[in-house]
């Protein structure tokens, strides 16, 4: 019964977009250049907004349109724009980061998605929504975002990973519970915005203190020595 055939077209579209979203997370993991990483991130934001809008349509819950718009402006436009501006400013746009064992990373990512599916499976069937299968995807996006932060050494990559996690959260909220209460949505969006701004501030501080954004060089504070 849970076969895709039996869903109306919009829901099929949502699930398709979900697939694209997780795919974009994989892409991010694979990106070598920061600029393209940010681009992929922007695309993910766009996809999310799209999915939200669609589910707003299917679930007749108008306030989702609003959050879709919010997401579009924040994650798909504002933040990517800021990031890419930063990249240009700190001229890192042609910097290429050597990924350690990309194949292993991607395998790990795949198994993470599998794991998240395994974790979420027992609770999925509770949902009455058609988009419930997307919960696993959203959890996967979150985990992949963390994986991204673990594997990258560029501060900007960390920010992207962080925002990707936010994406996953947002997607989870949409797909599992058709959005959070309005006030919470607002608050979250506000926090994300402020966070983005503060990140921007930090890049300059960091790059001025250690003339690069390589987080591995932020290791003054350590108990390990001596």
């Amino acid at each position: 019964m849970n076969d895709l055939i039996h869903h109306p077209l919009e829901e099929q579209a949502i699930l398709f977009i979900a697939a694209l979203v997780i795919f974009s997370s994989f892409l991010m993991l694979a990106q070598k250049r920061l600029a393209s990483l940010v681009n992929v991130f922007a695309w993910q934001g766009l996809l999310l907004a799209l999915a939200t809008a669609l589910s707003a349509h299917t679930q007749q819950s108008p306030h989702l349109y609003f959050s879709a718009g919010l997401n579009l402006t924040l994650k798909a436009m504002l933040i990517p724009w800021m990031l890419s501006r930063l990249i240009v400013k700190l001229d890192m746009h042609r910097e290429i980061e050597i990924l350690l064992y990309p194949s292993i990373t991607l395998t790990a990512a795949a198994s993470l998605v599998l794991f998240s599916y395994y974790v979420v499976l027992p609770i999925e069937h509770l949902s009455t929504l058609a988009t419930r299968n997307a919960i696993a995807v959203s959890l996967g996006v979150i985990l992949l975002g963390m994986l991204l932060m673990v594997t990258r050494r560029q501060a900007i990559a960390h920010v992207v990973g962080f925002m990707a996690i936010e994406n996953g959260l947002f997607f989870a909220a949409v797909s599992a519970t058709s959005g959070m209460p309005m006030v919470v949505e607002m608050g979250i969006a506000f926090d994300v915005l402020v966070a983005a701004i503060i990140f921007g501030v930090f890049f300059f501080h960091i790059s001025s203190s250690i003339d690069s954004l390589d987080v591995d060089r932020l290791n003054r504070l350590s108990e390990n020595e001596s």
Partner: protein
Amino acid sequence: MIALYVLICIPLAGMVLQARLGDSRAAGSWNVRINALSFVAALWLAIEISNQGPTSTHGGEFRVDAFNVYLVLLTAFIGLTTSIFSAPYMENERVHGRVTAKRLRLYHSMYQGFMLAMYLVLTTNNMGFLWVAMEGATLATVLLVSLYRTPESIEAAWKYFILCGVGIAQALFGTVLLYFAAGQTGDPATASLQWSVLFAHAHALNPQVMSLAFVFLLVGYGTKIGLVPLHNWLPDAHSEGPTPMSAILSGLLLNDALYAVVRCKMLVDGSTGTQMAGYLMMGFGLLSFLVAALFLHRQKDIKRLYSYSSIEHMGIMTFAFGLGGPLATFAALMHMTVHSLTKSAIFVTVGHAAQVAKTQQLEHIRGLIKTQPAIGWGLLIGTMAIAGFPPFGVFTSEFLVLTATMQQYPWLTPLLLLGIVIAFSGLFHHIQPVVYGAVPDGQMPVEANLWPVAAHLLLVLWMGLAIPGVLSHWFEQATQTIAGSLPL
């Protein structure tokens, strides 16, 4: 409940005000005044609550009961005393040119912002909004950590931001799951994020979802509590920021994160009816406690030393809440209070000590008692109190935790005691040479106001000798709600 709105509006206004004139000479005293106002408001609120019991308002978006009212009071009090300490401290920093006018504005307005976030975290009834406020607290403090713009401080701030950001994101996912569970109970009444509603229908929530949710919430808020192995940001952030901020971080932020976890635990327990949440908390608590105790031995920086001791004590509280019995819960509630009082008092003295010696390096701070007796004694007695010596309150709560453990899991007590001994030896091994001994040259007394220290330590002493009636009443009520029965 007007008191509540007043309480929330004052810091809000203060934030705006200080953003404008935070760099003026009077900013420090203004800060004190604002906090005094909010303390009065908090008192007012407390009186109302103790008269009319748990109250909720604004369509249940805000709810104040015995559990959070005393935390509100505590927050207001520590905010006040710390601001009293902060005034001369920041003045001194300004004189030595370590902070610019712009940063002073930032500092003072963010101080208020942080207080606002704390009040919101405590009083809100909406789990989602609690998350928002918690994140707000991080955002408010992260720029304070890097206030001095030294490479270390920037690094610390960055780590603080990233780690707490990642952590808090997981907490949000947990909240989403919470909402999800609430949505699936069948009746639309429960479909909300209001804690009181969820708590009332906890049994109806799906256990599997709830246990998953709790995992995320615990990892998320646990990062803020500083549970090992999620603690790594904490010593950096505490040691690099301005000391008043370390004081409020240790004294308030950690408490409130723990408060959030406990609220979640109550929901989860109601739903699953198993000990799962309790076991997780016990495990984390014990681990943090022991590891932090060992960390104490290797510190070179006096503020790091005490931030590790904060981790250690948060570990004890988490463990106690995890135990869950009425005795343990009472102990944990009391420990929250005495620990924040003592720890913030210690950070006050530590800040002055660092100014006296012009460094935070332990091996360069010597003979404080001879240089400036008040600071030296404050530090020594504070350390004694935090190390759990009677008649200070910390001893009482730790004693209760121990006996509760003895009754429920006797084989865990040796671990706790071991940890206590290790922690004590680590602390004193470092602090004794700092306060005692001869004065190194170039160590000069500084202008300091030690009323906060005296007030805090006296309070802790009082609580050790006899808990004030109203406070113990609140503790018992809170124990009643959390653990379901009264101690003994």
